[in-house]
């Protein structure tokens, strides 16, 4: 990891440093100045933002109700959309509760909606469907056999008959048997039938990304495998508010959607979630932190690692101060949550990179042919003359997710920080 190479203290003004061809790295290896002080233990609770203390999570009613892009879905559809938040309630929820809330609303308002998957009638392994069977009946919320390909095919059949089908694949790692049905049937049926059939009413929910101890078959991030399947949409929320709004949009979107829920955030991400029915737009990225010097693009769990990395970058703890040149620390980092992987928000990303001139993409899946590869290729094409550094990808390694080394597999805040420094000093 190059972060261990200390950078020389440079007293260049940041604007100059950000210009091209400035490379403070040269000769750095000859001038190692290892810190001689002993590493101090961090204060209790840590001094870095984590999911528990994230500024990105909206834990106050007022800010929750002002979530950007939120559209109340309970209003008269012909009336102009309002942003008045008076009279709206919020409830403290974690992500699985917000997802459960979204499915409850979808089922209450849509009589044709059914929820099915492995063990969903008992609440599902992550409790996302808890109480749904009791509330809506066993005819509408039912367990399937352990047959992913069958579940996907069955859901497509249900959806082409006009039913709202909300299927759960218990782990995104188990979606591969259903790959054929999703890519060849769900994504293509509208096109190949010349528009006479579609399965737009199908939504496949599936838990994704690392959990810390999932290992080979419970911590993968397969979103990239579906990226070439035009006709599908792929959505990955980062928080309870996002999960509820994006899931309701996905269920109601007239295209088949794969909704991937970062499983570590089911319990750890907590927000005040608007209690009413609302939607958030698909295909739109959201800028979480505005900046002007480098863009960090990510989705799902790494959003919080990026937030930590940006914090460390601007105020490095003493143990890693030597790795972050002082002159860089005032650089303004822009953080974007992509939210929809397909279709991805090219305009927002390109607009940002044209302003900042630098892009770091962070995702948990491996680098080779991951989602970052597609984005990097498109960005270099559209922003070629504006780029001050190569697009940098911080990703999982190109190896299976091993149980024992999972924490080293996923891109953590240190690796992201390293990429920020490297990109800004290119």
């Amino acid at each position, binding site marked *: 990891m190059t972060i261990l190479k200390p950078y020389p203290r440079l007293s260049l003004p940041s604007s100059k440093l950000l210009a091209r061809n400035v490379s403070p790295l040269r000769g750095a290896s000859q001038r190692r100045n290892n810190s001689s002080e002993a590493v101090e233990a961090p204060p209790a609770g840590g001094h870095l933002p984590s999911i528990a203390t994230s500024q990105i999570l909206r834990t106050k009613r007022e800010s929750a109700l002002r979530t950007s892009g939120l559209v109340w879905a309970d209003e008269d559809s012909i009336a102009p959309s309002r942003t008045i938040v008076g009279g709206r309630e919020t409830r403290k929820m974690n992500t699985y509760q917000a997802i459960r809330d979204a499915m409850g609303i979808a089922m209450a308002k849509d009589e044709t909606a059914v929820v099915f998957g492995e063990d969903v009638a008992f609440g599902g392994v992550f409790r996302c469907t808890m109480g749904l069977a009791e509330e809506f009946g066993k005819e509408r919320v039912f367990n399937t056999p352990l047959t992913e390909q*069958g579940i996907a*095919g*069955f859901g497509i059949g*249900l959806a*082409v*008959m006009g039913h709202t089908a909300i299927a759960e694949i218990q782990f995104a790692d188990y979606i591969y048997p259903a790959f054929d049905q999703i890519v060849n049937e769900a994504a293509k049926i509208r096109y190949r039938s010349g528009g*006479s059939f579609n399965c737009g009413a199908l939504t496949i929910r599936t838990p994704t990304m690392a959990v810390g101890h999932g290992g080979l078959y419970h911590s993968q991030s397969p979103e990239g495998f579906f990226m070439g399947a*035009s006709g599908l949409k792929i959505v990955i929320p980062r928080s309870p508010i996002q999960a509820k709004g994006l899931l309701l949009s996905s269920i109601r979107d007239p295209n088949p959607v794969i909704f991937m829920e970062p499983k570590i955030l089911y319990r750890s991400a907590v927000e005040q979630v608007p209690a009413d029915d609302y939607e958030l737009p698909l*295909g739109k990225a959201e800028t979480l932190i505005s900046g002007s010097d480098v863009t960090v693009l990510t989705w799902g769990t790494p959003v919080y690692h990026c937030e930590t990395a940006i914090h460390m970058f601007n105020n490095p703890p003493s143990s890693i101060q030597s790795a972050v040149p002082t002159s860089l620390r005032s650089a303004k980092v822009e953080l974007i949550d992509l939210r929809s992987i397909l279709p991805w928000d090219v305009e927002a990303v390109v607009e940002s990179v044209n302003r900042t001139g630098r892009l770091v993409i962070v995702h948990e899946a491996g680098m080779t042919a991951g989602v970052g590869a597609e984005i990097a290729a498109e960005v270099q094409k559209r922003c070629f003359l504006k780029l001050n550094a190569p697009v940098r990808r911080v990703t999982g390694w190109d190896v299976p997710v091993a149980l024992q080394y999972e924490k080293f597999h996923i891109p953590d805040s240190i690796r992201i920080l390293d990429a920020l420094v490297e990109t800004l000093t290119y």
Partner: protein
Amino acid sequence: MSSLARLRIARRLPTALRAHVRGVQTTADTTELHNKPEDLSQPITLKLHEDSFSTHLCEKPSLEVQITAQELMTMYKQMQTMRRMEMAADALYKAKLIRGFCHLAIGQEAVSVGLEHGIEKNDRVITAYRCHPFAVMRGGTIKGVLGELLGRQAGMSNGKGGSMHIFTPTFFGGNGIVGAQVPIGAGVAFAQKYRAEKHCTFALYGDGASNQGQVFEAFNMAKLWDLPCVFVCENNKYGMGTSAERSSSNTSYFTRGDKIPGLQVNGMDIIAAKRAVEYARNWTVEQGNGPLLLEFVTYRYGGHSMSDPGTTYRTREEVQRMRSTQDPIRGLQRYIEEWGLATEQELKQLDKDAKAEVDQAVAEVKESPEPLIKDLWSDIYFKGTEPPFMRGREREEIHYY
């Protein structure tokens, strides 16, 4: 090793043969006339050959069939038209007007036409790639099918699908992925059950697809939830170029549903086919017995697809024997003539009509334009929810929605 394998096959063969001693027979002309009324608008009574069916965990359908002379004539006309259509497709393919994939159902007409005569309008059908006759029988047109094969706007999917991708409101398409349509059929049947419709779904697949894992997944779900789904195995004896005996440890496909009862049918006699479909429909819809497996023993005269001559894995004599002795259209023709329901002349006229109808459709689709360039990007996402742009055929071609 190879000698060992041969030995093993040799040892297994007799058992395999013994199991098939009393399988269904596949002659097309063994149904007998039992009672013919003076007035031919009244139904006549027929008796099917006693070896028309084999069963697994269920009773045999009754062999007595009531049918009008008019319906037999309609069946004849439809089978003849379907064969003409497939022959036209064959010629168009060889003339290079059809590109890509094309799987013809010549020889299997009794299944598609017989199915339609046994079901109701609002039952649903989904099948595999050998789908052209089903699409027409389910409300499509010959022009729509041939137009799709030629990739013209007149096609049922506007020329964007091609063979295998043709749909009508009650026909959920051919399907190019072997076996993939079977769980979809189970889902369609579930929706029918959910809505308490008095209808069922016929999910068809071939003997080749019967070894796909997802077919068994669908069987299990359908039996578990008692779905009104009839799984129909069109056993034409060859999955691509591999015979059923070489691909399947159990070639009695109607017994492969485990707890799902099965019925094996002479798929070359359209009257037996119709009878079996009525039985299956009654089983799932009227009696609410859940799913049923229906196996039609049939035969395809042509190769698997246009690039398969169909003679490398079977003998020309075998094909010739089937054509000359068990052809479903000739079988019905013999019935009609022997029972005095129509004259040879009248049937010849139907043949001519069928040919004229197909010729007309061929002429029309040749005139139909190819799809518009803008349709390259239509029907990918629901209108208005597309990504802002999609890439086109060459580097600088980008379509903005």
